[in-house]
């Protein structure tokens, strides 16, 4: 459904292109941004709600999807993703020139690029911005620069704002040339640079005046993007205006963007129906529309045409503990640990996975598949590179006969599966619903009673990353479209979010090889690693998330890909 939707929007691209040409012509003529044509609404103000306030718009700190969706319209990096998630030049004039050894990246910068305060963007600004992110962004995406020479020194710099140490691997032969040296080949680097997070350029002359709070005030939230902040009332509203004579393209047609921070999306949906909002789902709100509202809207012949679903980049699964209990944790030995490819523990893991009827789970837990779909193609979400293919994951099959046989072999006396507890965080309705459904299926299908233990999200995260659970809900939201993001964080020994402490030397070797290869060549190795994990029955897949959006029919080129909303400056508001 999402592909169809994206396809439909692509069909509207000629309109956007024509609009963009019009804008350029108009800009050349009078030096100001475009005047909407007759087919466009006179008032080019885009309004939408968000149930989440801005956490930060500082590239060194930005972490949350809700922030990134706004941020990507205010700041630019060297590279960016287009709407089809292809990496394209942003302030760089072209994709980087990469040295033969894969360790030196050279970028030529667009000489016209400037911040909205008029300051021209210089290569040294990127050195400052990246170094600052590397130093202050360890809690966010600063580690994206961990392959840049000098990262070790900069990331350990205390109080960087007053002790500005630059990444020694970055240099600026002139104002419009930037060279970045890596410690080893790292073909994910271009993707990491395109990610709207740590790699956007900021104006040192502004940021140095107030390192902690510069981003939150319209006067100092200075970026190079097509929009700038004009008002921000914490927890209430934010407003952004198009930057006059913006250096890039397409020139923004939408002149004002107004966002209300509301309590929950039900209120937003009601106001959307009343004409108070132009769309629902932007700003990372694609999964926040209550299911009851979606069902109601689906029954409405007019509104249902405005409702769109897009596969989003989040997968959830059941994870088993593979490692020993952490000392002092009080956790029991895991009955699922060991026997990677075969043996009793392997059979037990496989039995638990094959006993789940995912069609039933999706129907019950995701309102007949409205909010999620069964994860049948590996853990990397459908639509992303590294997705293994529909129904390719043997762990996602529902095979009760085999599950019962495996249970007999894995736990002949039934002693291992007594008193098991499944931990989950009930903060998202889908986590609770899937936990209850899966436990009920284990009881019905295998005769195993698994206790359910809801834990508040923050405590849950703390405990599972500390390996304190034997059986628990795990999940991942991709940071960017590269399998490395999944494997290095989740399935490699020491991976920060490898809550199950899973490790398989075969997977480790494949991932290590793939990480050092260009993406096209690496995909085969990442897929082999995914299949090895299936052989290991390393997890029990559950669901891929979907995002729900509503767009008024008069919006032109509004939409979302698997990761992000389409850029605001590509959008137009048609007459209505």
């Amino acid at each position: 459904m999402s592909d169809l939707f994206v396809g439909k929007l692509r069909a509207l691209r000629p309109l956007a292109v024509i609009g963009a040409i019009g804008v350029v012509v108009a800009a050349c003529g009078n030096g100001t941004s475009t005047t909407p044509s007759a087919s466009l609404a006179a008032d080019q103000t885009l309004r939408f709600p968000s149930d989440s306030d801005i956490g930060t718009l500082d590239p060194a700190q930005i972490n949350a999807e809700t922030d990134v969706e706004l941020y990507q319209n205010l700041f630019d990096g060297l590279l960016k993703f287009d709407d089809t998630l292809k990496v394209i030049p942003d302030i760089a004039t072209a994709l980087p020139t990469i040295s033969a050894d894969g360790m030196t990246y050279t970028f030529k910068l667009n000489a016209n690029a400037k911040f909205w305060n008029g300051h021209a963007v210089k290569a040294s600004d990127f050195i400052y911005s990246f170094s600052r992110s590397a130093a202050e962004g360890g809690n966010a995406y600063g580690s994206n620069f961990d392959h840049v020479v000098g990262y070790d020194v900069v990331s350990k710099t205390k109080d960087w704002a007053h002790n500005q140490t630059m990444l020694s691997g970055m240099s600026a032969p002139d104002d419009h040339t930037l060279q970045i040296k890596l410690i080893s080949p790292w073909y994910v680097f271009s993707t990491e640079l395109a990610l709207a997070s740590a790699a956007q350029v900021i104006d040192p002359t502004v940021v140095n005046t107030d390192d902690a709070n510069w981003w939150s005030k319209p006067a100092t939230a200075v970026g190079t993007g097509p929009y700038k902040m004009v008002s921000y009332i914490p927890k209430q509203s934010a407003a952004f205006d198009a930057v006059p004579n913006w250096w890039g393209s397409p020139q923004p047609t939408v002149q004002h963007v107004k966002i209300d921070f509301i309590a929950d999306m039900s209120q937003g949906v009601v106001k959307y129906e009343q004409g108070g909002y132009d769309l629902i789902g932007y700003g990372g709100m694609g999964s926040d529309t209550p299911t009851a509202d979606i069902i109601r809207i689906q029954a409405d012949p007019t509104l249902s045409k405005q409702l769109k679903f897009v596969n989003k980049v989040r997968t959830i699964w059941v994870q088993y503990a593979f490692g020993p209990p952490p000392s002092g944790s009080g956790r029991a030995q895991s009955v699922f640990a060991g026997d990677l490819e075969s043996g009793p523990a392997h059979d037990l893991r496989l039995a638990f996975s094959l006993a789940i009827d995912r069609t039933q789970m999706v129907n019950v837990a995701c309102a007949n598949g409205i909010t999620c779909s069964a994860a049948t193609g590996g853990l990397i979400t459908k639509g992303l590179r590294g997705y293994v293919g529909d129904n390719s994951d043997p762990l996602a099959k529902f095979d009760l006969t085999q599950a019962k046989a495996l249970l007999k072999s894995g736990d002949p006396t039934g002693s291992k599966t007594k008193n098991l507890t499944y931990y989950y965080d009930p903060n998202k309705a889908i986590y609770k619903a899937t936990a209850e459904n899966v436990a009920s299926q284990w009881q019905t299908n295998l005769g195993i009673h698994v206790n359910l233990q809801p834990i508040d999200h923050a405590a849950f995260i703390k405990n599972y990353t500390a390996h304190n659970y034997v059986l628990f809900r795990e999940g991942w939201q991709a940071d960017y479209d590269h399998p490395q993001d999944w494997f290095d964080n989740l399935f490699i020994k020491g991976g920060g979010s490898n809550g199950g402490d899973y490790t398989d030397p075969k997977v480790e070797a494949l991932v290590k090889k793939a990480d050092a290869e260009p993406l096209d060549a690496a995909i085969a190795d990442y897929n082999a690693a995914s299949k090895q994990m299936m052989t290991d029955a390393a997890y029990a897949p559950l669901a891929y998330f979907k995002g729900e959006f509503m767009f008024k029919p008069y919006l032109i080129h509004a939409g979302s890909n698997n990761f992000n909303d389409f850029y605001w400056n590509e959008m137009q508001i048609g007459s209505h």
Partner: protein
Amino acid sequence: MFTRGSLLYIGQRLILILFTAVAVSSIVFLGIHRLPGNALLNERHPDPAAQAELLHYYHLDLPLAQQYFLFVGGVFHGDLGESLVNRSVQITPLLLREARVSAEVGGAAIVFTIGIGIVLGVIAAVRQNTWVDYVATTTSVIGYSMPNFVVASLLFLFFGIYFYKWTGGTIYYNSGWTGSWGTLDQIVVPGFALGFPYASIVARLTRASMLEVIRQDYVRTARAKGLTDRIVIIRHALRNALIPVVTILGPLVIGIVTGSVVIENIFGIPGLGKEFATSILQRDYNIVIGLFTFYAIIIAAANLLVDLLYTVIDPRIRY
């Protein structure tokens, strides 16, 4: 207006409010720091050094006692710190702005509570055992029996969706505040939802109190003097009938303040009530502590105000 005794009383109560605020914030501070997890955790496992730096930034790496003294010092200077979730957002100005929003909605609720409650109560008493009394009493019972979140959800549903086209959008809740003050269409519906259940209590109390007062000798005397019914009721009966009503105003104000947590979340009003729920769910400790402190001050101050109102309504009461 104020005697030396009453000024002394007010002074004592203000000192008590200060101690209450410090005591409440201390209990919440110590309690909340016992909870596992914090707002800085996320699925993307942070670099330990960066995590340590963040903890240092928020003084969370200091011993609890030291954190506590820093916090109390801040409270005395009116500085409740910075949000853990929304970086750079200072809590004191945030809560002051949100308090203004809540006061606006709460004020509307109090107007409804007192206005509707007293009018219904008086009419029911004056027209005792007529259909007017039955309608007023039944309305009160309905209001008294329905929690404010039920009233709010129904109003939201009816005026926001079902009756929207019929009313032409003149009566509905318009979500999305863009300034410090809401517009009339943003206040009326939530204000009514918040105040209606309490209005019913006031109506029942006023009716009972009025029935007692209008049978008093001085009311009979007033009538015998040839005064009109309106003057007898408004000038002679109502004032004395209001004393028991004022007695419950304290708890009612507290009910409205706490009820705003639910109402503001249902209607998405950016006030203290909405902040209360979101900051707890997000484990934004600093805001949670600040909010509890704020609420303690508001409730204590409301009680003081009601106590002072007694002296206005009943001159026999002196402090």
